């Protein structure tokens, strides 16, 4: 493309801009999406809905809607929804960045084929994660839309920012998981990640109950987990209980994790594909 050479500047010959690198993979990911979106509908939209009905409505019916004990929520459903969506974002991020990454390295060797072209390792990471972020964003958006009629949102603008927070926490997890998967030699490591990572985080990062219930020490442990920052943001925006200094810390932590995760992923994949 003519633009490749005119935009070269100080960069080595032929190096693509981040945008070009991703744009060139658009058709690939579009084809992947066309093939897989149906399966995604079940796991992205139906599963969380089951959770909301079972935990939020049916189980939540036994729980008093005391705002003082539910971080400002007037019902358990309103309390659990923002946390569930954030946890759901994490789950999509992790599942889309585990086996598919290993497959592209070990089984299908997609990354090797792509690297024989002008694309570089960072372009592969960018496009892959962009696709995962798209999946997270669309799944969370539909989830939030479905929940709107349940009267769980306290303002009209809050859910939009909550959605951004959910996408942000998902992105952080996608990048962290990508880096882990790129280094993993065998898929057994994923079992460890799901059992000792995803499951405890889902259960204990404040999605299902206020972290204050954990006691002073464990509460702080929970507040250090990446998911808690996402749950905290998502809930504050949904319930219109935003504590701006806390929100700022949440955002800074998640953005920092994204940056770290990106470098960790690019380095890991670069080393892995160097043979």
């Amino acid at each position, binding site marked *: *493309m003519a633009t*490749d050479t005119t935009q070269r500047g100080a960069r*080595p*010959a*032929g*190096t*693509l801009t981040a945008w*070009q690198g991703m744009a*060139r*993979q*658009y*058709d*690939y990911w579009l*084809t*992947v999406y066309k*093939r897989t979106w149906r399966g995604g509908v079940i796991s992205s939209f139906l599963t969380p809905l089951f959770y909301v009905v079972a935990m939020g409505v049916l189980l939540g019916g036994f729980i008093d809607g005391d705002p003082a004990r539910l971080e400002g929520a007037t019902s358990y459903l309103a309390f659990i929804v923002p946390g569930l969506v954030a946890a759901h974002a994490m789950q999509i991020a992790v599942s889309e960045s585990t086996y598919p990454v290993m497959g592209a390295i070990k089984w*299908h*060797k*997609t990354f*090797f*084929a*792509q*690297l*024989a*072209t*002008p*694309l*570089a390792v960072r372009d592969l990471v960018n496009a892959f994660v962009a696709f995962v972020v798209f999946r997270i964003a669309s799944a969370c958006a539909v989830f939030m839309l479905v929940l709107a009629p349940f009267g769980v949102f306290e303002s009209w603008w809050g859910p939009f920012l909550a959605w951004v927070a959910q996408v942000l926490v998902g992105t952080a997890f996608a990048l962290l998981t990508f880096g882990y998967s790129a280094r993993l030699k065998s898929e057994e490591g994923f079992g460890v990640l799901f059992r000792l990572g995803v499951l405890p985080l889902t259960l204990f990062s404040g999605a299902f109950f206020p972290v204050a219930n954990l006691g002073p020490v464990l509460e702080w442990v929970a507040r250090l987990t990446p998911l808690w920052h996402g749950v905290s943001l998502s809930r504050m925006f949904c319930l219109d209980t935003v504590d701006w200094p806390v929100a700022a810390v949440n955002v800074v932590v998640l953005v920092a994790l994204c940056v770290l995760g990106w470098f960790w992923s690019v380095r890991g994949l670069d080393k892995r*594909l*160097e*043979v």
Partner: protein
Amino acid sequence: MISARGLRKSFGDFEAVKGIDVEVRKGEAFGFLGPNGAGKSSTMRMIASVSPVSGGELRILGMDPATDGPAIRGRLGVCPQEDTLDNELNVFDNLYIYGRYFGIDRATCRERARELLEFAQITEKAKAKVEDLSGGMKRRLTIARSLINNPDVLLLDEPTTGLDPQARHVLWDQLFRLKQAGVTLVITTHYMDEAEQLCDRLVVMDKGLIAAEGSPRELIDAHSTREVAELRFGVGEHEGLAEKVADLGERVEVLPDRLLVYSDHGEEVLTAVLDRGLSPIATLVRRSTLEDVFLRLTGRSLAD
């Protein structure tokens, strides 16, 4: 097109390529011949600008892969040893999507993909899944894919390994046509017949070093006799019988299953062997091949 000086590649303590000099000229078919583990694939990956050079100098199309990797890769076609086709895409999409990685616009990509399907003789399989193709078709698709960007240099790593003889000949025919169209070919192979058929010039690699360089004919003339008489005796007899025929040729090689007597006149060797009262189970007189060159240079056969 490609020039290497003292090129090295090491993985930790292991040195796969131990300093080689190579010069590939425009329009020629250049081969790396050697057994598995000779360092051919490591060399190819460095040329493909995906594997960093550990030492020495490498220039591809006048550029340095360390800094100009994307620009170099944009002008290369790579047909890797293992198929890296996307099994989840159909045949046409494998070509189309690959073309997009090079920044080729969509309409041109479609047109190129159709032309290449024609070239690879798999047009009727355009909508088929990759996994439904035969081994030969997959290889042809891989080669077609590597041509999507009209490369200046086509790198082929063991292009016919694992194919049946008929599929190999179809593939060779296609590589011939590319060569005639002016594409520079760089081929690694451990098949001597492939090297003889396809390569204008080649280097024989062994243990990370270049053992000899030249055209197939030059190499055979320089390192072997015109003909070879192959004598097969009973199991375990070859070692003992070698000295009885040693004076009949310029050189005798003892293989586990036969003796090779190198001479410009193979039939005369056979007559002399029978005159001496020796009775081989089977005999064959043939022209020298690159296999003989390799045996001479390394003391081992290519299959080792």
